């Protein structure tokens, strides 16, 4: 029988469960997303309450849609981090219960690695420079010596934070990227805003403050949205170009929630073209958080023997992607496999 893995995602606003077969076929992908009050961000406890309420329903739908019986599973993978503690604990509780009850291995998955692996699966990218952009990440990584190494990242807030925190001020709900993108299309002019590149890093906190200040001093909302989006995406494109030139990679993979932004996509395609690299972009619905990214990474990890005992499967709210050993990718070393 084919090895399939059930993956659970609950790091932030999305509670998702998916079943993926060994060859990467997504048999089911069910999600229920917590929506914050407009003008507010994610409230961790409220999001966790939401996840607890929908967990059983989502789990059942994941099995039904996949036409898979629980005894056909070979493993249960869980995003143990990074993310919001209360949210992570809901998913982890379900995963531990499933693993114990079905007597199959529990596989620890780093949420960010999940974004990378689902991106590689969906696009066919082999050895890309990864641009991971979401509410939780703005990082540029390349694989080397058994781990994803960070070549550049944000020194403060992420690009997703930038959009969401700006949106809160105008009472839009998070995630607000798509709404800002729409408003930007109606802009008439570019307003000068702080463009902060530090080596291969970016910093968005000053851009957020300046954008809000422009808005409060009577700037046109559409123009501010357009200019903020232009500046933030251009800054990222520049540091991606620096990392691409530095690492000499031939592929670029854009993944994570903000990968759905068309302006960012087009800028990174330009960057790839300038350096004769191929640009790959994850397409919705696999840009935003989903169970499939955890299930598929679970398949890969399980194959390489990465498992965790239930008693030791603590959630890791601050689990950085550069700290995860990846024994399933070539160029990796089998030694020192991460067992949490």
């Amino acid at each position, binding site marked *: 029988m084919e090895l399939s893995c059930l993956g659970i995602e609950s790091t932030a606003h999305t509670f998702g469960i998916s079943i993926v077969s060994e060859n990467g076929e997504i048999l089911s992908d069910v999600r229920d997303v917590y929506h914050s009050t407009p003008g507010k961000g994610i409230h961790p406890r409220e999001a966790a309450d939401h996840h607890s309420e929908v967990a059983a329903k989502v789990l059942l739908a994941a099995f039904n849609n996949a036409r898979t019986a629980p005894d056909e599973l070979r493993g249960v993978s869980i995003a143990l981090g*990074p993310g919001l503690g209360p949210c992570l604990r809901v998913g982890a509780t379900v995963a531990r219960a499933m693993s114990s009850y079905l007597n199959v291995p529990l596989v620890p998955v780093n949420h960010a690695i999940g974004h990378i692996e689902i991106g590689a699966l969906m696009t066919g990218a082999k050895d890309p420079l990864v641009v991971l952009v979401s509410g939780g990440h703005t990082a540029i990584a390349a694989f080397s010596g058994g781990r994803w190494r960070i070549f550049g990242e944000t020194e403060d807030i992420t690009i997703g934070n930038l959009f969401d925190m700006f949106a809160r001020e105008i009472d839009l709900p998070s995630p607000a990227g798509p709404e800002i993108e729409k408003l930007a299309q109606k802009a008439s002019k570019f307003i000068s805003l702080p463009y902060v590149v530090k080596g291969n890093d970016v910093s968005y906190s000053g851009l957020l403050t300046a954008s809000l200040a422009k808005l409060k001093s009577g700037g046109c909302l559409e123009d501010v949205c357009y200019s903020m989006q232009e500046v933030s*995406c251009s800054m990222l494109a*520049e540091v991606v170009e620096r990392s691409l030139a530095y690492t000499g990679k031939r592929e670029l993979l854009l993944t994570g929630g903000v990968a759905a932004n068309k302006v960012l996509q087009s800028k990174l395609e330009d960057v790839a073209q300038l350096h004769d690299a191929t640009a790959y972009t994850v397409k919705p619905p696999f840009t935003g958080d989903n169970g499939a990214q955890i299930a598929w990474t679970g398949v890969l990890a399980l194959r390489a023997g990465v498992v965790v005992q239930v008693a030791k499967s603590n959630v890791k709210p601050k689990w950085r992607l550069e700290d995860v050993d990846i024994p399933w990718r070539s160029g990796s070393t089998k030694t020192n496999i991460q067992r949490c």
Partner: protein
Amino acid sequence: MSTFRGEAVQPKLIYKGAEAEIYLQDWFNEPAIRKTRIAKPYRVEQLDEVIRRTRTSHEALMMHEVKRLGVPVPAIFHINPSTATIVMEYVKAPTLKEELNLLPKSTKLAKCENLGIKLGQMHAGGIVHGDITLSNVLCDSDSLCIIDFGLSTYSEEDEDKGVDLLLFNRVLKSSYYDAYESLFKAFMTGYSSSSGKSSKVMLKKMHQIERRGRYFDRA
């Protein structure tokens, strides 16, 4: 054949960086480097023009300032901000990035310590580099030559100096993960000897900046 401002002799593209194209050309019968910041299709013109023009004139100014601090940089021959072009001395030397893979361990440590001394001198003189990577350091036989000052700034703040250290730390960590601790330690030894700053204080600052990023333990 040499002509006025070296623009008549066929220049040869020797390096295409992320930001600029580097040409080797003739400058009054001497080889020279022409660095031109090229327009980026991914930036709106208004933004792109300002970035290229200001970084070009700023880079030339900073190279001059840094040279006065006794840090080796290429000599500047000519600047044209409107075409985002600088013509400078041709330093015929490999980058530290190329050299680090070839050198024996003790020499690697010595090079990193030497780079630390150079950066420390700049910081002591109130200048931060802003993009201190291994590609931006040329390895002459016995000295190091620092290049690419487009992101440098005047600063007496530990905050800005700490960003320089953090950027270099990240470069070593991502490219030389096995040896990075000893290389960075050697770098900091050199740095504290010339910057007038204690290694302990600056490392604390660097970690403080790092922790503002995502998913670092704030403890």
